[in-house]
C-alpha cells in the first residue's frame, strides 16, 4: 500500500522543496515508484529542481482541480530529467512530478475560488493507482493554510523541516499541535541549514527533547548547495557529499518505516 508523505515547514526558506526533491529521488533510487505533487499552488517551484520548464508541461494540478485533465495527464516522468546534466547516479525506480501552474491568472483563479478538497484527495489516490506508486510526496505551501491542512490531514507521515532558529522553533510547535489535532499517524522532523558550529548529537537531542518527536536527519549549510542554486538534485551532482549521505539515510528510514 502506498505511503502518502507530506513535507511541510512553518516558515518559507527552509529548503523544503529542495529536500523533498532530494529525498523523493533517493527513495526512487532504491527501486521505488515515487511521485511528488506540488500543492504549493501560491508559489510553485519544485519543478525547477528537475529541470522542467513551464513550457514543458501542458497540464498541471490546477487543470485537474478544474476537471480539465486526469491526474495521470498532469504527472510527468522526470526520472530521466533528474539524472541528466552529467550526473553520475542511476535511479532504478521512477520519479513523477505533478507541477502547479506558473501562470499568474491560474494562480489567482484558484486562490480566489478555492477548490473541492475531495478533488485533491481523489487526485492523490488516482495518481497512486494509475502510476502504481509506492510513495506520494506532497510538497506543501509553508505555514498553516487551508490547502496545507488537507495535505497534513490525509498523510500517513508528515515531515516537518525546521532550521535552528527561534522563529522556526515556535512555528514548528504550532504545526505539531495542528498535526496532532488532525490525527497524523507519524511525524518526523528534519533540521536543515544548520550552521556547522552546532554539534550534531547535541542539536538533534535538543530538538527531540523540545518536541518529543524523532529527528530523522540533520543537514548542515554548505557552499556546494548554494553553488548549485536549484540547478538540479543535489545528491545526484554530489553523491559523496555529507548532505547526500544524510538524504539517503532519511530515505532509508522512510522505506524501513513502511
Amino acid at each position, binding site marked *: 500500500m502506498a505511503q502518502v508523505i507530506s513535507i511541510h515547514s512553518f516558515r518559507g526558506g527552509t529548503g523544503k522543496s529542495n529536500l523533498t526533491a532530494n529525498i523523493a529521488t533517493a527513495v526512487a533510487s532504491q527501486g521505488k515508484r515515487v511521485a511528488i505533487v506540488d500543492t504549493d499552488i501560491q508559489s510553485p517551484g519544485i519543478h525547477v529542481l528537475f529541470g522542467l520548464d513551464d513550457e514543458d508541461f501542458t497540464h498541471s494540478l490546477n487543470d485537474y482541480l478544474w476537471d480539465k485533465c486526469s491526474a495521470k495527464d498532469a504527472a510527468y516522468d522526470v526520472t530521466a530529467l533528474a539524472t541528466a546534466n552529467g550526473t553520475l547516479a542511476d535511479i532504478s525506480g521512477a520519479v513523477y512530478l505533478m507541477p502547479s501552474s506558473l501562470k499568474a491568472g491560474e494562480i489567482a483563479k484558484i486562490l480566489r475560488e*478555492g477548490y473541492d478538497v475531495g478533488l485533491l484527495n481523489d487526485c492523490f489516490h488516482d495518481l497512486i493507482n494509475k502510476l502504481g506508486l509506492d510513495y506520494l510526496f506532497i510538497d506543501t505551501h509553508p505555514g498553516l493554510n487551508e490547502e496545507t*491542512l488537507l495535505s497534513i*490531514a490525509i498523510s500517513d507521515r508528515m515531515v516537518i523541516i525546521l532550521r535552528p532558529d527561534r522563529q522556526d522553533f515556535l512555528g514548528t510547535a504550532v504545526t505539531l499541535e495542528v498535526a496532532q*489535532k488532525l490525527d497524523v499517524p507519524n511525524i518526523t522532523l528534519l533540521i536543515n541549514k544548520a550552521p556547522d558550529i552546532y554539534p550534531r548529537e547535541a542539536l538533534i537531542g535538543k530538538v527531540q527533547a523540545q518536541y518529543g518527536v524523532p529527528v530523522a536527519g540533520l543537514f548542515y549549510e554548505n557552499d556546494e548547495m548554494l553553488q548549485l542554486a536549484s540547478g538540479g538534485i543535489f545528491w545526484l551532482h554530489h553523491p559523496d557529499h555529507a548532505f547526500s549521505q544524510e538524504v539517503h539515510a532519511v530515505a532509508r528510514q522512510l522505506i524501513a518505516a513502511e
Partner: protein
Amino acid sequence: MTSPAEGEALHPQLRPVAAAGPKTMTDLLTLAEPERTLLNWLLRQRGASLADIMAHTQAEPAAIQGMLNNLTAAGFLILHDDADPAVFKPNLVSRQPRTMPEELWKSVE
C-alpha cells in the same frame, strides 16, 4: 427514537437534514474531539457507509447517528444516497470565497 442497526438503511426520520454549505479545513479544527476524529478518519477514507463508520468507531449506534446528523446539518458531511449503501462524504472546500474587491482579482486573471 431508535437507531439503525449496522448495515441497515437509514430511516427517513433519521436522515440528516440539508447541509449548511461546505466547510473548510479550518472549520474542521474547531470541532470537538469526537467529531473531529470521525471527520479526520472520513477524510482519509474519502467517505464511508454507516455500517463502516459503526464498525470503525465501535461506538453506540445512537451516538454515531447523532454525530453524523450534527456534522451533516452543520455542512461538514454530505450523504450520497445514490450509492448503495449510502455513503457519508466530507463536504470541505479549500477556502471560502475571498472578499477582496472584484476589480483586483480581474486585474490578475
